[in-house]
């Protein structure tokens, strides 16, 4: 940083001309007295070599701290209150990476990536741009591997867990129950809502017990095969697991086409976050969220026949066929 500017070359070069000589006092410059001096007339370097300071490697304790933090982050992002970043397009952001293929595409946005925003309006314009109009035609075609992408959640799943309501301002109470309806969202008469207080809700504890570092990634997470399957969209704990995926598929098959537009692997997650008497008939929050924005997560639609893929595959212990299939759509 401070390496530059010490050279001071060209001193006195700009003085006024007097009798064809520069008005520099005699003997005030080095070369006036020293005939053999070698002047360095080169311009100073634009980017002088700079020794980039490197932080020391992590100590064991720091490693532990970071692991704890990352594990905590994983658990947070797995929880029901996490809203996945999904709509920021103009910046390199986690949203672009994390959101599904539909949102990472370059939307018809006037803002170039990283463009400077002037005023709050322009900042706001960066968000919420994911709609049917902004789909990327190249990735929006339903593919097999999209079965395994997480459906980004736009609104937190508040209805699924208990709150200490007396400490919330009264205007939020309805929201906490999950029946916060706007005029905008209330357009659907047939919408099924969770009933407030239907059955006791239980706080879910995260089942993620270890954060995987790069070395451990290929290890399988320690979850028993008989664990009730969690929704593919949210659970991360052991999602990649063979048995898990198989089980998901079989449940899916059982459910048939019963699911509406809420994304395909839904319906099971309530087992995990809520234990109540309202297992099957509640609406997906993702779908609820999709109401007010243009629906950005239901591109899977009904025109995609899942069973064609799953038939005959459910008993197959080795899932690699499916994996390879998916591999093509990276």
């Amino acid at each position, binding site marked *: 940083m401070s390496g530059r500017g010490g050279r001071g070359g060209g001193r006195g070069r700009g003085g006024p001309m007097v009798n064809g000589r520069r008005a520099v006092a005699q003997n005030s410059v080095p070369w006036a007295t020293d005939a053999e001096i070698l002047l360095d007339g080169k311009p100073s370097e634009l980017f002088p070599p700079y020794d980039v300071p490197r932080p020391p490697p992590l100590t064991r304790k720091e490693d532990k701290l970071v692991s704890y933090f990352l594990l905590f982050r994983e658990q947070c992002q797995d929880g029901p*209150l996490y809203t996945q970043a999904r709509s920021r397009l103009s910046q*390199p*952001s986690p*949203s672009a990476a994390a959101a599904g293929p539909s949102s990472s595409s370059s939307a018809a946005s006037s803002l170039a990536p990283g463009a400077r925003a002037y005023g709050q309006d322009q900042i706001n314009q960066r968000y919420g741009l994911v709609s049917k109009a902004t789909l990327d035609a190249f990735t929006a075609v339903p593919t097999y591997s999209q079965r*395994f992408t997480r459906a980004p959640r736009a609104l937190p799943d508040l209805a699924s867990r208990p709150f200490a309501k007396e400490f919330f301002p009264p205007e939020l109470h309805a929201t906490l129950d999950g029946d916060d309806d706007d005029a905008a969202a209330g357009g659907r008469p047939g919408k099924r809502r969770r009933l407030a207080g239907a059955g006791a809700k239980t706080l879910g*504890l995260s089942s993620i*017990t270890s954060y995987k570092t790069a*070395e451990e990634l290929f290890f399988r997470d320690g979850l*028993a095969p008989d664990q009730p399957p969690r929704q593919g969209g949210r659970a991360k704990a052991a999602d990649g*697991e063979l048995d898990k995926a198989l089980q998901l598929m079989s449940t899916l098959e059982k459910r048939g086409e019963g699911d509406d537009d809420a994304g395909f692997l839904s319906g099971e997650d309530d087992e995990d976050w809520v234990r109540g008497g309202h297992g099957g008939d509640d609406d997906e929050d993702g779908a609820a969220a999709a109401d007010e924005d243009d629906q950005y997560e239901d591109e899977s639609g009904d025109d995609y026949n899942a069973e064609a893929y799953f038939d005959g595959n459910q008993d197959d212990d080795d899932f690699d066929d499916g994996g390879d299939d998916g591999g093509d759509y990276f």
Partner: protein
Amino acid sequence: MLVTKPLAELCALLIDELHGELPSRIFAMLLTKGRSTVPQLAQYTSMTPRQIRHGLAVLHQHNLLYYHVDASSDLAFYEANPENAYNLIRTGKILEMVETSFGAPAKDVVQSLLLSGQTRISDLVAAYKEKIDHATKEAAANGEEADWAAETNGINGDAPSTNKAGPVVKSTAHLNSILCRLVEAELIEVVHSTTFESPQDVQKIVEKEVMDKFFPAGVKGNKAKIEFQEKMAEGLRKVRAESKSLKRKLEQQGSGIKRRKLMENLAMAVTNGNHEEDLDPVLDPRQVIRINYEKCLVDLRNRRLVQFATDMYGETTAYVYGVLLKLLTKDLPRCRQDPLADVSEDKHDAEKPFLVTTDLILDNLKTSVDLSLGIGKAERRQVSRSVAERVEPYPPARRTFLDEAEVEGEASADEDEEDDESSEGSEEDEEDYKPVANGEANGVNGTNGARVKFAGAGGAAKEPRRLDRPTQLRQHLLLLCESTQHFVRHCGPDEWTVDFPALLRSLRETELDTVIERKCGRQGLRLARILRSKGKLEEKALPNVALMRKPELQQKMLEMQSAGFVWVQEVPRDLKADVKKSFFLWFCDVERSLGQMLANSYTTMVHCMQVLEALRYKERDVLETTKRTDVRGREKDAMRKEYYERYSRYLDCERKLFAQMMRLDDLVSVLRDF
């Protein structure tokens, strides 16, 4: 807390990282616009009120908001809580701290609490109950599929696997006992009706109460003003004490310390440790609890100070210091005193003195620690016992940085030697403890004569004089006492206390010195110290004092000026303010440098987050793949090799960036919070 732009940005980014985009946007808006209502927020962010309400609920659940409901209009005004938002980056540290001092189960509980925000005890218990039930069921199932389970467990060896080892928290009674311990340590506090009023609102409420109750005619005269202040402080303390209601109840139900001792005895006797749980009273399940960051910070500060002592003296002394700090800060609720609430706290101090006795420390030391290490020895005649053991009943008067430096820096011309005391110590060993020979250095270091000196290897090698344990302990404490950093004050015969403000000032100064040295080299550090001890120095006088050549010196000073460690003041000699005739005074303002360092740290942390985002954008196709449920968990098998390599490189970078942020947070805590 003063929220600067980088800090606001950092808070928003942290929330984005942990809780998602929606809360983060709202939080950023609350920070920029101040307290707002839902319709206002909706207008600012161009989101629907429904989205805003959801986001606010999440923020509030995670204790990131203050709100105030106006009695007349029923509208709630929301305000951001930047302290808690910043504290998110400390999650890893807090978890680690809890694990080392309370064990893995406590860490699990704290993690759940952090994860779910404010939680009713009954909900927490129910959640754990379910998890435990689930685990037992699973364990039964695992028995059948032995081979599968064996494989999993073999791999998950170190991780707290839920399969075979069972959950970390074994039963609800166990959970209750953990909660009790955490409540007693004040790491968990109770949420009450005024928790979510912002500090200003609390102050106003209390003020109104006090005015109505005691000063209906208004506050007139000096005497009344003082009385008013005291009443205010009392009121504020009462509000604060509400969050300790659980702890008080626990103490009533059975003296906590007594029970703890009993439990420790039991734990020693019964290896299983199941009995101790029965002794803990069941906590009121209706109470809502959350993590008390203030107390966590106190514990983190203790760790930092022990680290500081390790750097200065060595491990044994630092261990003794750690025990002392732990005992001393057991009832210390926060690092920095609230200027309003703690006005008349001194009275309370008188009732419950803030000190530790030698015997108490001795009782709490582990017997396995060899106290004879780390102390040098001196001949009896070389020790001025009266000076070494002098008692300072009162804390040193608070002085400004400049004054202090002037007083202490008498011998600062060669302060560099002071840094590596080990070498100095061994040097003295060779010289057979002749204090006269290097009296100058000793004057700085030991109060007088080398009574107890850091000995390093040299001292330990000598034939140790047989000393009993209490004496050795005393020597460690005296060693800490006579440090220039004010680690410990000998406040009475065999009574010790710590003056945190003075100690932390010297810690901050040490941090600043480290930064100066890294940025401008030893020369720069030397110049900064000269300026600190001399106050303001004229440009022409500086080369003489510093014994440096003028051009070199000027270059160095300019370098330091642009880095923000020294400043120059121009004093004109006459009205014309001729530049050639003016004085230029160099000076060094520690507070200002520290402020600048703090701002730089925030900016760097924001930068770390931005680099991470850029990385994510760059690797977004890989990350998208890893998010898929069929890939997650078996990335190596499912992904192509180059993809996998890119992914692991990304993970490495992520770790490094977060580690860097945590290091910066160390600095921020020292500068701002401790």
